[in-house]
């Protein structure tokens, strides 16, 4: 009965053994904007930190922190980690993978398996699928219809053979997870404004697929400087499309230094020819000593006169 047993009071005298067994820790906060308050008390979060997941980045994403707190390591997370290992993601890559895509831990295992089976049916090898998944963590979140749609889009737009399209997608799987309109617009820009022929565009895209996701303004500015001011014809740019990936400032400074020294020769028929990919990709010291045949100090003094 309610009235028979009086409730125990907080000021009651208790024995020493009972007092030791009471564990009184401060309560966990009900609301918090960081995962730091919960990481010591949650086994899932602790195990994820030991795997290498960067929780400070994950907590900035929308609802990702909440998802991780509600999951249980033994029941949900372990299955998906074993599945990822099966697909071929390496152990030391699991941490960065989950940092970029924590939502995969909330996905249905069967849906993920169907998508991997679809990729295998399209004749992607096991190591190739592993590479694609590590480089584009969001790939397995796309449903089979979406993946099919996107692969078809690239085959139609670029007009390359099936083998070459697959090779492209393996090297830059980001194409499958990004938006498709900017890619279409970039292809139009290359054809209409920059004046490349269709087969030249195919060659450039096969060598540097990053052009498809570059910003149009930057492409136009870089091309304008290379073609009009440095005087490089279209066929040379088709041979070395890496120049489109580098910063305009870098190309400009290095070209002006070479022009000042009288070594700006980009025609392979002439002597003391400087190839475009060396102009762009070499680090500063190597560029100064090998190509410009001057010291780093001269380069810095020249930079200050521009």
């Amino acid at each position, binding site marked *: 009965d309610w009235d028979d047993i009086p409730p125990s009071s907080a000021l009651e005298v208790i024995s020493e053994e009972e007092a030791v067994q009471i564990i009184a820790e401060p309560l966990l906060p009900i609301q918090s904007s960081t995962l730091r308050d919960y*990481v*010591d008390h949650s086994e899932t979060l602790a195990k994820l*930190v030991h795997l290498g997941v960067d929780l400070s980045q994950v907590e900035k994403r929308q609802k990702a922190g909440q998802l991780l707190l509600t999951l249980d390591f033994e029941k949900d997370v372990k299955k998906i980690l074993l599945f990822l290992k099966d697909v071929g993601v390496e152990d030391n890559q699991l941490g960065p993978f989950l940092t970029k895509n924590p939502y995969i831990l909330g996905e249905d295992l069967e849906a993920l398996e169907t998508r991997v089976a679809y990729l295998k049916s399209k004749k992607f090898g096991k190591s190739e699928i592993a590479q694609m998944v590590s480089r584009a963590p969001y790939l397995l979140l796309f449903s089979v219809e979406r993946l099919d749609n996107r692969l078809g889009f690239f085959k139609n737009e670029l007009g390359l053979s099936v083998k070459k399209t697959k090779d492209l997608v393996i090297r830059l799987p980001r194409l499958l997870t990004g938006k498709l309109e900017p890619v279409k617009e970039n292809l139009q820009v290359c054809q209409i404004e920059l004046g490349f022929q269709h087969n030249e565009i195919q060659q450039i895209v096969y060598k540097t697929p990053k052009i498809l996701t570059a910003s149009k303004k930057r492409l136009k500015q870089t091309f304008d400087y290379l073609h009009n001011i440095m005087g490089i014809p279209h066929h040379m740019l088709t041979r070395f499309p890496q120049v489109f990936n580098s910063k305009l400032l870098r190309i400009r*400074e290095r070209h002006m230094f070479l022009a000042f020294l009288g070594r700006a020769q980009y025609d392979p028929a002439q002597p003391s020819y400087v190839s475009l990919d060396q102009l762009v990709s070499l680090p500063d010291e190597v560029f100064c000593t090998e190509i410009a045949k001057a010291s780093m100090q001269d380069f*810095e003094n020249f*930079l200050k006169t521009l």
Partner: protein
Amino acid sequence: MAAAGLAGLAGLFAVYKPAGVAWSRVREAVETRLLRELNAAPGRPPRQRVRFLPAPAPGGGGALELVAARVPVLADHPLVLGPRFRKLKIGAGHRLDVKASGVFVLGIGHGNKLLTDLYNCHLTKVYTVGGLFGKATDDFSDTGNLVEKTTFDHITREKLERILAVIQGTNQKALLMYSNIDMKTQEAYELAVKGLIRPMGKSPPIITAVRCIQFALPEFQLEIHCLHETQQYLRKLVHEIGLELKSSAVCTQVRRIRDGVFTVDDALPRTQWNLQSIQEAIRNCQLKVETELEKTLGHGENSPLHQLGGDMAEHARQERP
């Protein structure tokens, strides 16, 4: 350690801004590079805590007993905390627009307070301005829309230097007017002899000295010492010089070679924007900046400029209750 790195980052230093880049991008690039180097240094070790963890009993198999162990607190793990430094207080001195290049003063931490003091010193800046005769565009530079084309064969170096002398004369009058100094005193004469007269408050752009460094038709180069100017004003000046010479001119290059006490030799090029070079630059420029500030602003208001004029009207306003 990182604390030592941050301690050396308090003061003023100059950076060489490349052309074609906005000044805010330059400031952000310097900030990003410094943050990357500061965050690369190891941080504090995590706190330790005593926890009772289950471990197999030493006697027989199966039974688990609680064993006390010292474990690092996971809330201090670097992957949970994130980067130690997320922002740095970097302030910019006199700004340069996108097409101009040259010495650009930046201040870090406590140096930002010195930036306002340097601004109040009203020191002159020196620019190298390159021009081209024969064209006129709508924004006075060579990348604008063409407005007219003229001949320029009649221009000689003497005619140019005559125009520059006229400009210098009118600006000298403006200088004396805006510095609010009573010309009839002995102190004013002494200051004028030393060349220390300048406006200590707001004023329109004033050119204290111009000279022609190079003259090879149709190109020419001028060295301009000025106060309170903007780079577009200098381009407009080139355009007006063209008009005065009965032709037209556009400005091809605006380059700042001195900003107060910072010269091109003190400015760091893009390859040297790292923690060590910046700390060294701050140390080297510290003495120069302090002497200049002492000379002009002084302790309190004992410097002659302040005694004479400058803000005479302001002082009068302050005295009135």
